[in-house]
């Protein structure tokens, strides 16, 4: 099963440290020394703030990814519990962004790359669960309120098992209240 990062709106304070953490980890530490106009600032998660909620939204790494199905050039694939985009293949057609029901994909320009007519080259951008980065998702690590967590197969499978046990126990107790503690 694919893993994903989930935000807890009860803990999130909307500060967006996660968004910067995401950029820094994907661009590398040299980002603090380079020409301020030369790097990409393309966070792979987006802070949502409404009257009711503040929480970052990012890719759920679906098991039947709609984005993957919509991609006309097979630039989206699954590997190692995650859904990934090959940005070299991506043509920026926005089909994946349209297909994604969470708005987890945006189309971003990559600094320094251009199209044939000189216009900016833009490609799909989304959470890769910090693929190949030691320590796991940066957003989870930098959040000052521990509002983000990585959900793994174990968490989800284990939780479901527990919920089923609970449901069964409750159903049994309804019929046999005398056995209750």
């Amino acid at each position: 099963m694919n893993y994903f990062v989930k935000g807890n709106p009860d803990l999130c304070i909307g500060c967006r440290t996660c968004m910067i953490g995401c950029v820094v980890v994907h661009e590398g530490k040299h980002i603090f020394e380079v020409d301020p106009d030369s790097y990409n600032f393309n966070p792979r998660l987006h802070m949502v703030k409404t009257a009711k909620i503040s929480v970052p939204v990012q890719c759920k790494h679906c098991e039947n990814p709609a984005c993957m199905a919509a991609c006309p050039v097979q630039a989206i694939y699954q590997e190692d519990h995650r859904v990934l985009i090959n940005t070299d293949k991506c043509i920026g057609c926005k089909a994946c962004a349209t297909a994604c029901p969470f708005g987890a994909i945006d189309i971003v320009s990559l600094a320094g790359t251009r199209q044939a007519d000189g216009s900016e080259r833009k490609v799909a951008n989304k959470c890769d669960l910090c693929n190949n980065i030691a320590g796991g998702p940066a957003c989870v690590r930098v959040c000052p309120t521990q509002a983000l967590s990585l959900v793994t197969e174990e968490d989800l499978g284990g939780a479901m098992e527990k919920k089923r046990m609970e449901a069964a126990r409750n159903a049994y107790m309804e019929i046999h209240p005398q056995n209750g503690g």
Partner: protein
Amino acid sequence: MALKQVQTTCPYCGAGCQIMFTVDADANKIVEAVPAPGRTNDGTLCLKGHYGWDYLNDPQILTKRLRKPMIRKGGKRSPLEEVSWEEAISYVAKKLSEIKEKYGPDSIMGTGSARGAGNEANYLMQKFMRATIGTNNVDHCARI
């Protein structure tokens, strides 16, 4: 590359978070900031604590670091000219002494700084205004 670890207090809000910096002493550069287990921050940092230090590299995004003392020798709106510290210090001392002489100590105002300068500099500033100048005209932007 000689890396060293230095713990310090964040220069931003009043929460007083402790940050552990990794510094490349040979290159005289900061490499990384990670949260330290301070009393108030408990091993966490916000975006300013994590990513608010590269202004020290003078990237010149909004403003430029001051590197030399400067004086407008031709009065207001004349260009700033770089001068030596000796000249700058004696110029300030002379002008302040003249104004104090002419209009009295209460015609001079000084500020403390609620930001990076630290307590010792603030102590000296108020001592300077009170003892050297002779006025209580000293305040800072606590209210701003």
